[in-house]
């Protein structure tokens, strides 16, 4: 009788001993987050409303930086166009290639784990300056790639000298590093129920039909994740444009990341560069939101 009156309250929060221990585990991360992410995040917002050359103290100028960015700066529109061009080539290219390779590697063959590792390795070098320098050397006019083309009697291509080709060259560097997306697709492919394939085969479905009607819908959630992550990365690209082509030729690869770096550290317009970075942040947020809103129509979740 006495026991029936005892109610066991669940641990719903509050400063309990358990929560204190949990907080201790995460407080170091929180400290790092506040210092290295939150502080620059908020500082850049404040600086974006100032005229700040990094040598003197910043002086408040309101929305002048933003107004100038949209009304007077032709370079901003060029950089935005280049960035969007880079993104819309790189993201589909990377995701599609990752899916194709994942499907090829989704078999139980001898040495398949080794092949999966080999294809994954380039993605470990993402953002590497050394790899970008290597890419530059490979794609020089008399580099290895043109030598290979020469073997099959294709005339040499001006990979970095031709403004149209230069952006393709840096896109290829990013697409080459598809390993992380491939690994995610691989795990998604393995989770597609075998019964669906068997049933489709029994019904006489072709491989192409099976792919579009079974495989693709079942992995849309991972595809969605990959697209979001690659979109965010691509819009913020800097290393490949800076190292391989230095924004050229003729500003053909002058992505927004490069523009804001140049404005901040070469032209000493830190406030203006911060405004550019916030515009880039807003663009990323809008594009991500669009993807999330439209995802209801095409992304399938098991639950």
């Amino acid at each position, binding site marked *: 009788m006495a026991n029936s009156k005892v109610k066991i309250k669940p641990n719903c929060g509050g400063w309990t001993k358990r929560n204190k221990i949990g907080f201790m585990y995460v407080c170091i991360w929180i400290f*790092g987050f506040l210092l290295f992410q939150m502080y620059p995040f908020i500082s850049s917002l404040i600086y974006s409303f100032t005229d700040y050359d990094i040598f003197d103290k910043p002086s408040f100028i309101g929305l002048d930086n933003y107004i100038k960015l949209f009304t007077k700066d032709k370079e901003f529109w060029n950089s935005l166009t280049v960035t969007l061009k880079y993104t819309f080539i790189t993201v589909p290219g990377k995701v599609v290639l990752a899916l194709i390779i994942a499907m090829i590697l989704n078999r139980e063959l001898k040495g398949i784990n080794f092949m999966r590792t080999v294809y994954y390795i380039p993605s470990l070098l993402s953002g590497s300056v050394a790899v970008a*320098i290597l890419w530059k050397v490979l794609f020089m006019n008399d580099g290895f790639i043109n030598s290979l083309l020469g073997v099959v009697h294709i005339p040499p291509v001006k990979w970095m000298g031709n403004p149209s080709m230069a952006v393709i060259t840096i896109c290829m560097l990013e697409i080459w590093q598809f390993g992380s997306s491939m690994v995610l697709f691989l795990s998604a492919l393995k989770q597609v129920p075998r019964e669906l394939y068997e049933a489709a085969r029994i019904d006489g479905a072709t491989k192409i039909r099976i792919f579009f009607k079974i495989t693709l819908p079942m992995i849309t959630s991972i595809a969605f994740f990959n697209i979001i992550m690659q979109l965010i990365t691509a819009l913020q690209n800097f290393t490949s444009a800076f190292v391989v082509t230095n924004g050229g030729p003729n500003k053909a690869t002058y992505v927004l990341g490069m523009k804001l770096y140049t404005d901040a550290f*070469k032209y000493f317009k830190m406030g203006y560069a911060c405004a550019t970075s916030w515009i880039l942040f807003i663009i990323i947020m809008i594009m991500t939101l669009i993807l999330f809103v439209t995802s209801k129509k095409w992304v399938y979740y098991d639950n």
Partner: protein
Amino acid sequence: MRKVTKLTCLLLTGMMAATALTGCTNKPAATSSGAETEKAADQTTAGKSTAEQITLRFMWWGGDARNEATLAVIDQYQKLHPEVKIEAEMNSDQGYIDKVSTMLANGTAPDIMQQNVDSLPDFISRGDFFVNFNDYPDLFDTSGFEKTFISQFGTFDDKLLAIPTGMSCLATVANEDAAKTCGIDLSRQITWESMLEDGKKLHEQNPEYFYMNTDTRILCEYVLRPYLRQLTGQSFIIDSEKKMSFTREQLVEVLQYIKDCYSGGVFEPAEDSATFKGQIQTNPMWMDGKFVFAYGPSSSINLLIDAVPDNTCTVVQMPLSTERVNDGFFADTPQYMTVNKNSKHVEEAVKFLDYFYNNSEAQETLKDVRSVPPTSTARNLCAEKKLLNPVVVSAVDLAAGLNGKSDKGYTTSAEVYAIQEDMIESVAYGQSTPEDAADNAIDLINDYLSGLK
């Protein structure tokens, strides 16, 4: 057991987080071309001292020859002054200016810095960063420098804030063998008109040859600005008045000239030379002797000459218009040396630079790694011992007789330089007409000038 496990987990988590945080070091990353090597790790303070020893940080950029010579001079000084330790910070030229600006802004600049001649005036206009050598007459002897030279290079508002490292100039290197093959007479003075005519004719007759090895950035300093200086007699931007010295028509004229040079085959197509921007000596066509001329500063024309070991090279006078109001070109300095005003050991740093410039052993070691030495004592010593590259000396001698004036200042700030380069690229790639490119550039320059404090 449970308590030990929790404590262990907490400690491991802390170590992981600490490792991740220490990865976010403020130590500068390697630049894109060439590695940055440091002899010591400490960059967070401008200099430290103990009771026994003073440590100075000395930062410069350069190739192997310059690095070796400078390190040798540091060794010499340290042997003579065991209480002083100098930490050498060698760098590539790429990204150097960005690094210096960041260090000056956040107070981590070394005690002694080599400075780029284009960017130093901009730094000086933005703050009081550098020591005035005139305040240390007992520690730094300026008597070996020509007064006119040092007043033009290194003196800003009557303060000697930087010491020129040498006498240099813009040079036109000629490959004598290629000139002979293409029938170019090197004894004839080049004019802008003859460069265009001879270059077009050369390329028509020898399609695999080009007249001039250059890139779009070099053209800013070697064609665009001198062409205008010869027309106007003034710098691209007149600093005292904060205005452009040229008219729209004059700018269109020079851009049309550059466009004609590209389309006529005087210069290699921009698409092909883009790969070797900043490193034209690595262009395989130059190395194969398919260019008759190449542009380069006298302080590094040895790079161009060394790239064609089987050919004989010389220097010729820069292009001079027959209707010029001013020669446009001038004797210059390749770099400056400065002492950080916030250094904890200003006097020691100044004393080291006095040794660097005025000591005979240092002069003999440094030779011409920074072009012809700036002091008369060094030049005499090096001439006596035949240490100077005769081609470099010829180039500087050619410039010494010209009456152009230095245009360093707003003209050579990063933003204005980029505007110059962009307008050249837009006509070189056929993206704009000279008129459109000129109009766009003038708008941008006016915007820059209106933002000056």
